[in-house]
């Protein structure tokens, strides 16, 4: 990508709407060429300023409930390991996954048809994994009784705009939304959702249109057997 070509796409880059390949090319150019920083700062500032004008678009309903709960908890209802300490929690989870990986083999749960790994109800930490026939992998890890669950996804396709992955717990036959996300260009995602998962709950992943009813699940692409 030349400087002229970069200038063509810089506004879209500042808005964060470039396609992954073009974004990677822009990134590569910006990493080597320092000529565009001041223009990029201006465009970025303008982009953020435009977001502040979008008053007519409400925040997600799930967020409204979380904010409304703040006064009752005196500001306490934050997710576990928030902000700076989040990566420590994530590192602990990976260590945990390594421990449970040994157990998975004996339970023979990661078979091609999809399966789940349950941990004993007495365990303080849990780790569930869904695996598809084509290498799709989604794990749910966390601490029993905590208000968040860490989800790691790999081997899935990045969905086009207008679609997203939605994660569900099946609780007493009801599908309850855990959260939603899209993967990066490499098919991965890692993050926390504010959701208290109970041990033994079935789990599922669906692909949804952003305009679809957020409470009505489509056909699952991955789910717990049984």
């Amino acid at each position, binding site marked *: 990508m030349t400087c002229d070509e970069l200038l*063509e*796409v810089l*506004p879209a*880059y*500042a*808005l*964060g*709407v*470039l*396609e992954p390949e073009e*974004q990677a090319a*822009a*990134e590569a150019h*910006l*990493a080597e060429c320092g000529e565009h920083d001041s223009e990029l*700062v*201006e465009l*970025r*500032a*303008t*982009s*953020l*300023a*435009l*977001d*502040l*004008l*979008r*008053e007519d*678009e*409400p*925040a*997600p309903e799930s*967020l*409204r409930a*979380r*904010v409304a709960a703040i006064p*009752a908890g*005196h*500001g306490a*209802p*934050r*997710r576990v390991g*928030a*902000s*700076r300490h*989040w*990566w420590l929690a994530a*590192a602990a989870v990976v260590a945990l996954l390594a421990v449970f990986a040994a157990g998975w083999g004996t339970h023979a749960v990661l078979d091609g048809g999809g399966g789940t790994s349950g941990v004993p109800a007495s365990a303080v930490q849990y780790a569930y994994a869904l695996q598809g026939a084509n290498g799709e992998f989604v794990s749910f890890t966390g601490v029993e009784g905590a208000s968040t669950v860490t989800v790691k996804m790999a081997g899935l396709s990045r969905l086009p*705009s207008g679609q997203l992955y939605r994660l569900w717990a099946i609780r007493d036959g009801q599908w309850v939304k855990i959260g939603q*996300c899209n*993967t*990066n*260009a*490499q098919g991965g995602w*890692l*993050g*926390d*959702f*504010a959701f208290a998962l109970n041990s033994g709950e079935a789990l599922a992943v669906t692909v949804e249109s952003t305009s679809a009813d957020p409470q009505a699940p489509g056909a699952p692409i991955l789910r717990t057997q049984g």
Partner: protein
Amino acid sequence: MRDMVRGPDALAVRLRAGDASALEELFERDGGPAFRLAYRVLRDAPAAEDAVQEAFAQLWERAPSLNTSGSLRSLLMTMVHRRALDQVRSRRRWPSAPVEGEALLRIDERATELLERVIEEVSSEALRLRLRGALLALPPEQRTVVELSHGGGLSLPEIASQEGVSLGTVKSRLRLAMQKLSLALKDEALP
């Protein structure tokens, strides 16, 4: 003309007095833009929700000592932006976590002060009107591209097919539009 000319923000006064319903009203008023701002930085809806919730929780904790003569909106937006950047930093320390737009994140971090000045200015009524005016003054085809890409999250090829024009045309419309909007902002907020 800054917000403080109109006197203290009634919501700020109620928040300082510990009125929980004021927090909900603030969310009603500014929650949408706060979420958009966090989402623009993080590009991940659950993470953006976390950033906004953390900012609101922090605001509630600090409410008893809130300075009611400043702009509550600008304080909130600055807090949201900082919480979002905190998340970007923590995500980066986790090597396998997806971090997209590395150069953008670098700009967000390096230009934090400038961006926060912009956030503060845009939180004031005068600059909002000015920027809104610049948006309305754009030729319709340029405004459409801004609205579809910035607001609608459509990619440039998607916009090209929706508008029935070439990708090059979409790129140049967006570029012209963003230049004009940047100029409108620059007159007051940018050095």
